[in-house]
């Protein structure tokens, strides 16, 4: 029951949190910013609309948003938000889930290529490349977590005798992992300095340019999927750095989501004080945390639970 509620809450709150980023950015720019519920309004507006489809596209174009949305939902179904057991979990689920994200990416990319637009092709190529680089870091992190807990599932990472936490044993090792995961989060969710969703030129976008031709409910599904994905990554980070623990589920959830909100605020700060990197610097930026993570995997050689 708790699990179902936790899942529903995550789904409901996912669109709210990105508005926090916008608020922070607005604050830095000295503006008032959109209301916190802006994303809900946008979703409702988009769901009410119809769509215009390019004559170049085929059924694949319509498949893209659905597959992408489904894979994001799967992440939330398997991730233990706020120390509450997820709805589903099994030994090895992390491998399957990261590969399912790959499936979502596969269909997003071919949906973009389906439009025959040169800009969308460009975005697709970058998405394919950068996420491959990010994947190296992700699997490095999984190796470390396996060494620390002996398990391959989100639920097992954060429960049982050897909980992965910055405050727990081997917390020092996790400092670099947290930094690595933060960069992966920025990459996978198309945030500054890897990608700038608010840029004015299609040529310089990555993710945003891939969905130029989607409209109406299709676009809403894509946006919702993106919110879920960002919530999953920041939830993952929050479980690592969350210093609070309380026996009460409610207090615990509240504390957890405050940490999540804090991560969103840091994203907003990063976006406000840095500009997007030049395209040829981006691969170097994404590869840097891999070095951190690889270093930590060597350090964990002697550790085995």
């Amino acid at each position, binding site marked *: 029951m708790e699990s179902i509620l936790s899942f529903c809450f995550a789904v409901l709150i996912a669109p709210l949190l990105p508005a926090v980023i916008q608020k922070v950015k607005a604050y830095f720019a000295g503006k008032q910013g959109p209301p916190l519920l802006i994303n809900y309004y946008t979703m409702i507006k988009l769901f009410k609309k119809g769509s215009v489809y390019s004559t170049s596209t085929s059924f*694949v174009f319509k498949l893209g948003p659905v597959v992408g949305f489904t894979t994001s939902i799967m992440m939330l179904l398997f991730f233990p938000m706020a120390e509450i057991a997820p709805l589903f979990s099994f030994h090895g689920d992390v491998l399957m889930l990261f590969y399912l994200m790959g499936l979502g990416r596969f269909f997003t990319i071919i949906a973009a290529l*389906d439009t025959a637009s040169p800009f969308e092709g460009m975005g697709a190529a970058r998405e394919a490349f950068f996420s491959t*680089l990010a*994947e190296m870091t*992700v699997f490095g992190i999984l190796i470390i977590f396996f060494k620390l807990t002996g398990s391959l599932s989100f639920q097992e990472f954060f429960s049982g005798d050897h909980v992965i936490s910055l405050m727990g044993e081997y917390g020092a090792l996790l400092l670099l992992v947290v930094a690595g995961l933060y960069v992966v989060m920025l990459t996978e969710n198309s945030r500054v300095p890897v990608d700038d969703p608010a840029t004015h030129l299609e040529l310089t976008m990555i993710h945003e340019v891939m969905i130029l031709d989607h409209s109406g409910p299709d676009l809403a599904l894509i946006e919702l999927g993106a919110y879920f994905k960002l919530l999953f990554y920041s939830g993952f980070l929050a479980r690592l750095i969350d210093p609070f623990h309380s026996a009460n589920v409610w207090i615990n959830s509240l504390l957890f989501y405050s940490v999540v909100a804090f991560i969103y605020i840091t994203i907003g700060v990063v976006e406000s004080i840095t500009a997007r990197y030049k395209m040829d610097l981006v691969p170097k930026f994404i590869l840097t945390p891999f070095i951190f993570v690889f270093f930590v995997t060597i350090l964990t050689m002697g550790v085995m639970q």
Partner: protein
Amino acid sequence: MDTLFVSIAVIFAGGVVGLLLYRQFTLMKLVAIATSSVGCGIGFIFTLSKLFGQASGLDVSYNWLHLFTLAFKIDSVSLFFLIPIFLIPPLALLYSFHYLENKEKQARAGVNYFFFSMLICAMALVVISANMITFLLAWELMSLSSFFLVMYDYEVKSNRKAGYVYFIFAQGGAMMLFAAFALIYSYNGSFAFESIAAIPDSAKLLVFVLAFLGFGSKAGIFPLHIWLPKAHPAAPSHVSAIMSGVMIKMGIYGIFRIYLLLDSPSPMIGQIVLITGMITGILGVVYALAKQDIKELLAYSSVENIGIILIGLGIGMVGVSQQIQAMAFFGFAGAFMHVFNHSIFKSLLFMGAGSVLHQTKTKNIEELGGLMKRMPVTGRTFLAGSVAISGLPPFSGFIGEFLIYYGAFNGLTATKLPYILAILAIISLAVIGGLATACFTKVVGLAFLGEPRTEKAANAKESGFTMGAVMSIMAVACLVIGVLPQPFISLAFQGVADIPVLAGFNTDAFMVIIRQISCTAGLFIAIFIVVSIFRKMLYSGKEIGSGGTWGCGFTQPTVRMQYTGTSYAAEMVDFFRPFVPFKDIYSGIKKIFPGTTTWDTKTFDIADKNYQERLIGPMMTLMAKLRWIQHGNIQLYIGYIIVAIIVLLLFL
């Protein structure tokens, strides 16, 4: 055992029929396909019943020419490799019914069926051979029959060249095998496989390396892979399907068999295989990404998958030498599973490429586009195959990779070098997976989606019925294996059952995980269906418009503005620059009013380039100096022979 020989005889009879009846084109095709397929069916049933049943009395030997013994023996490993041998060819044969429809080439089609059935028989014989003589006979039969299959369109010069390159690599590889076997024979004077383990440990590593090079040239390990991207585009597509899907796995079988027979204690063997696997896998997919010819790209992707399989085998071997049973078991089982899966989806993809080639007369991605609408069956099945080969759930490719990952993660308990190797294996698999996604989104996205780039693509029609049917069967199989993997995984588990070091390993705990994977795949599909229905509801009764693609303000788009395969891959290929040299040919802008300018980018295979520059170039200059020996005088040739015989008899 007799059943198996009956099935081989029936398959061969099918080929002979093809040769005899070639004047009645359609009848010949029907009879040849039916007969060979029945033979494969018999063999397939035999294999499955033995794999799950009692494996006794599977050991026979015959005396041949009063000199040699031909010995055959079947264990679980041979049985497992027999599955793709009997499963894929009937489908490829069925596909060929509509693929080979040029009546003017009816005699050639007959010859094609003959060598095709011979190839099936030879592969079956390779995996059941139990001594060196039998093995090498079957091996050479396999190489030769596949050589003739590659030479189908021999009047095209580039095809002849491709055939010769394949021939050189096949025979060069065989030479390595002869060397390995001769070395064994020099120690114990016996041709029997059982006696191989008796040679001294010091010699085992050398024997393994020789055999690894020999088998590796067939499997396509880096840098012995260069025949694949040449031979596959040259061969007819049903032949490419069978060569890439099944025949190159005989190289894997050989590597695994010699490893089992040597039973060497040296940890070096596993490390060699694992490192080769990682290099082969990553470079294979990078080269695949750089290619614009679909069949060439698929050939490089086969190199990549051989890399994945070798990573699995390497993980298994390292697990054996580290005495981590779980690592060994899942490494080997994962490699086996991937052999099985790859045989299906790679055949499917080659058949899809063949269907495109058949209809558009081009296999260059830059000249295709928009085929999903014009060839719906080929497009959809190719999409399924692409998802499967990228290793993405809920399709079959994921299952094999999951097993290998699982083995590698279990290997993280090791320390020092094996630990580093396990880490690198996991990272390599992740990189290969990501790049494979990039590679196959490129093929699907540029060849099948968007707008047609040329007239040829714009006028394409769907291929004949049997081709579509076969591809659909295989596409469904990819999905079924991904969603319901239990029976297929137990196939792989049965395959490794006879390996002594794995005896007594309990897989019950793992089967629970597999059931969970199956449930998760089901859950994914269920959510997908619910979301699709939800989306349909949102759109019901709404206005759906259609218009041109948003050109970012540009109002006169042409199909030539679409992203090209070269530019799609450019950034990723550039990342691996030292391994992928490339050359830009740019005519430049010269006058005030520039005329036509051209830009061409060529990528090179580093292995190919080095062979050309370092090996073939110097060799040609040397050989040119010795040309006087070849003068064409028959009397002097006889003289050479006599001198050679005298030297051999008197001095050696």
